[in-house]
């Protein structure tokens, strides 16, 4: 069986599944139960400065995007960082870490952007024996109005500055948690690296309004008739997170910087996708909040089965495997030509492919008598929309034209060699191939 042991920044855990900083990791009671359920590590719910604890709203904190059968597809929240006293959290962390030396325990921290504030809290966190810290530069709601969270994460200079302070006052690994509420994720990642960060973790939540109550005319979740944007997470954000992780993994400036992948991890497959795109481990919040701690069992069994099937012996072998295959558009092979093919035996004659292609694409599907749908090769641009909207798996597939065949749409012979936009005759900036 594949070895799922994870070594992230020298922090070892029995598997690469950590719980992200959020309600599941808010207190000793939860974290002990999470470890018993099999989680490899936790990032404790974000700590704030000493003093009167944070105050949360007392009405609903969450808004949800549902599927038809009330599957939770996306979640948003307006919760702040921990609202329990710093003392209590630190004591609990120390106790739990002592009892679970084989699990990762990371302290998440968010204090004001002042050196004194960091200097004050870091030694106290160090005393707990936690394996590292994560700097919460991500929460996009509430705390950001007070100049913390994403308000820091959106300014690369601040990230670099605070990271430096942390490296100065703290001896163990420093992970910088990034906000996705920014145009180019590579900039804050590079800033973290320049500040000496040992790793970045991403994504934190995305600014969002999940729904509007059309009777009360207020966004959800509603507090006494008003709402505020929240942070979006859960399955719906995975595509955004995957892209951001891959950007950091392949940018020359940040390549090699360890990444903890977060955002919509719900199954082993999601986790594997983060790992192959360069994440050294993954963190999970919404899936645990939706299904309970037990889901980690599926993540563990699924990942190890897949690794066994593919012949990966360890998590390290998996990390970043797909990064070389993430490239710029301009490097995609324009001589790779495919056509949609409809398997008439599988077709159930719903006509969705026809509607999609006829109304919104390239009028490349013919509807013949008897509701027989056929692709017109001379019109098909291979956009894949018919495949995507077909309700039957494998009924419509994309078939590659062999070199030497004629593409009926262009009337040209399919070239055998790779050729991309940079050398294409239509590209004014084309550099002629030598």
């Amino acid at each position, binding site marked *: 069986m594949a070895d799922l042991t994870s070594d992230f920044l020298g922090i070892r855990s029995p598997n690469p599944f950590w719980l992200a900083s959020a309600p599941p990791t808010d207190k000793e009671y939860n974290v002990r139960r999470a470890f018993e359920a099999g989680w490899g590590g936790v990032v404790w719910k974000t700590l704030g400065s000493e003093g009167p604890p944070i105050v949360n709203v007392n009405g609903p904190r969450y808004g949800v995007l549902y599927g038809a059968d009330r599957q939770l597809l996306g979640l948003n929240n307006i919760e702040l960082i921990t609202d329990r006293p710093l003392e209590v959290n630190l004591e609990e962390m120390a106790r739990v870490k002592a009892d679970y030396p084989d699990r990762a325990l990371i302290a998440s921290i968010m204090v004001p952007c002042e050196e004194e504030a960091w200097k004050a809290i870091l030694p106290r966190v160090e005393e707990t024996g936690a394996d590292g810290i994560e700097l919460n530069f991500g929460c996009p709601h509430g705390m950001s109005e007070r100049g913390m969270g994403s308000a820091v994460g959106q300014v690369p200079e601040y990230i670099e500055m605070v990271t430096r302070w942390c490296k100065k006052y703290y001896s163990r690994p420093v992970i910088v948690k990034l906000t996705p509420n920014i145009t180019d994720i590579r900039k804050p990642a590079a800033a973290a690296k320049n500040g000496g960060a040992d790793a970045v973790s991403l994504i934190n939540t995305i600014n969002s309004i999940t729904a509007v109550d059309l009777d009360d005319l207020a966004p959800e979740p509603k507090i006494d008739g008003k709402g505020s944007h929240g942070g979006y997470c859960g399955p719906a954000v995975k595509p955004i997170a995957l892209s951001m992780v891959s950007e950091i993994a392949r940018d020359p400036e940040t390549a090699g910087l360890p990444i903890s992948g977060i955002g919509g991890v719900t199954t*082993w497959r999601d986790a594997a996708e983060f790992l192959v795109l360069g994440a050294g481990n993954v963190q999970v919040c919404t899936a645990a909040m939706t299904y309970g701690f037990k*889901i980690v069992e599926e993540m563990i069994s699924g990942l190890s*089965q897949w690794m066994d099937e593919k012949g990966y012996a360890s998590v390290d072998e998996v990390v970043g495997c797909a990064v070389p295959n993430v490239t710029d558009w301009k490097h995609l092979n324009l001589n790779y030509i495919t056509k949609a093919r409809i398997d008439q035996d599988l077709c159930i004659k719903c006509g969705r492919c026809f509607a999609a292609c006829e109304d919104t694409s390239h009028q490349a599907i013919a509807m013949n008598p008897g509701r027989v749908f056929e692709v017109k090769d001379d019109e098909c641009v291979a956009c894949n929309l018919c495949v995507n909207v077909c309700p039957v798996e494998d009924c419509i597939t994309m078939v590659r034209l062999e070199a030497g065949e004629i593409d009926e749409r262009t009337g040209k012979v399919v070239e055998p060699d790779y050729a991309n936009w940079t050398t294409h005759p239509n590209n004014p900036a084309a550099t002629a191939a030598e």
Partner: protein
Amino acid sequence: MGNSPFTPGVVSARLPAEALAENFGDLHAPYTAHEAHVAADRCYFCYDAPCMEACPTTIDIPLFIRQIATGTPEAAAKTIFDQNILGGMCARVCPVEQLCEEVCVREVAEGKPVEIGRLQRYATDTLMAKNAHPFERAAPTGKRIAVVGAGPAGLACAHRLAMKGHSVTVFDARPKAGGLNEYGIASYKTVDDFAQKEVDWLLRIGGIEVQTGRALGEGGLTLDALAADHDAVFLGIGLGGVNALGAEGEETGNVADAVDFIEDLRQARDLATLPVGRDVVVIGGGMTAIDAAVQSKLLGAQNVTLVYRRGRDRMSASEYEQDLAASKGVHIVHHAMPVRVIGNGAVREVEFEYTSDGPNGLEPTGETFRLRADQLLRAIGQRLEGAPDGLTLEGGKIAVSGAGRTSMPNVWAGGDCAAGGDDLTVTAVAEGRDAAEDIHAQLS
């Protein structure tokens, strides 16, 4: 012209071969991968799930369904086999409508449960099709254990013991292993010789020797000898005897035990060789009665009547099984008991008397009626036969305490032959497995 459903008497080949093949095909077609995904997606992954509690082997149902949903049916199968090594057979034969699916929160809320049984079959079939056995034996312990009876109880016990590193010898009186999986379960629930394939697959754990044609109590094979020779003995001998009707004329020809009829059917290489009556009457209210009635009908009997002495709600066959029988054309008569079998050499009619279920129990009403019958099948229950001397019995079965401990030291029992628990395949598996754990604990 060959025979047809209208041919009088007890004759074979009432239906053409194609019709027989169709009738005895899979009761539920296996799921395709896509169907399994859609079905799995309906599971809510309930906390402390009621289905799990309702499963006698406590399979982690939410977990295995989630493993199907995430595209790893092999892992799902492992989750199932961890608790129930005969999870493949149980997926086919469990009365899920009375077990896991009955308590599924979606059954309770919508009357439409997650189809746990079919999902279980999808997972176990997937792994078994790869011919993969997901367990390895622990290092040999040097301990030797005798298991008597190669039915679900004995097989589950043997597998668990072998896994723990013990050496197991299984003795069974019959020519094939499998118990009622091989000789009793309705054909359309376990097609394509699944019972034998499952036994072969199970034995791949290693460390189990099966000796068929070895009956306890015969040829010097006694419990005392086994106990003296082994570190422990497990008895999983099922219920070999059949209850009599106690009706006048019961000895007439063409009156048989339903279990024998079913056994012949299960062992027949060619269903067209099996004789069945034109007018078949089956007496009983359990699964055996239903299976005998349904299979008579599927063989081509023109009229099949199942007669039960109490009301519908008292039948031990589930409502689902009763509906299945009705849908196949079996006529079910309630509140009637046989008083006389009429016929000269062979049954011709059966006389019944109506009953009422009053405060003094079941009472005949005095009103009688007759049913035409050229074949009569008894299915009013099995009983323990040939229990070794020296064992304390309770209610006609071997008395056990804890995880199957009998009154004799180092002798355990489980499955149908042991007191307590329902007479179901899955219960037999649970009891065999738990006895193995207890034996292991005692030996280590």
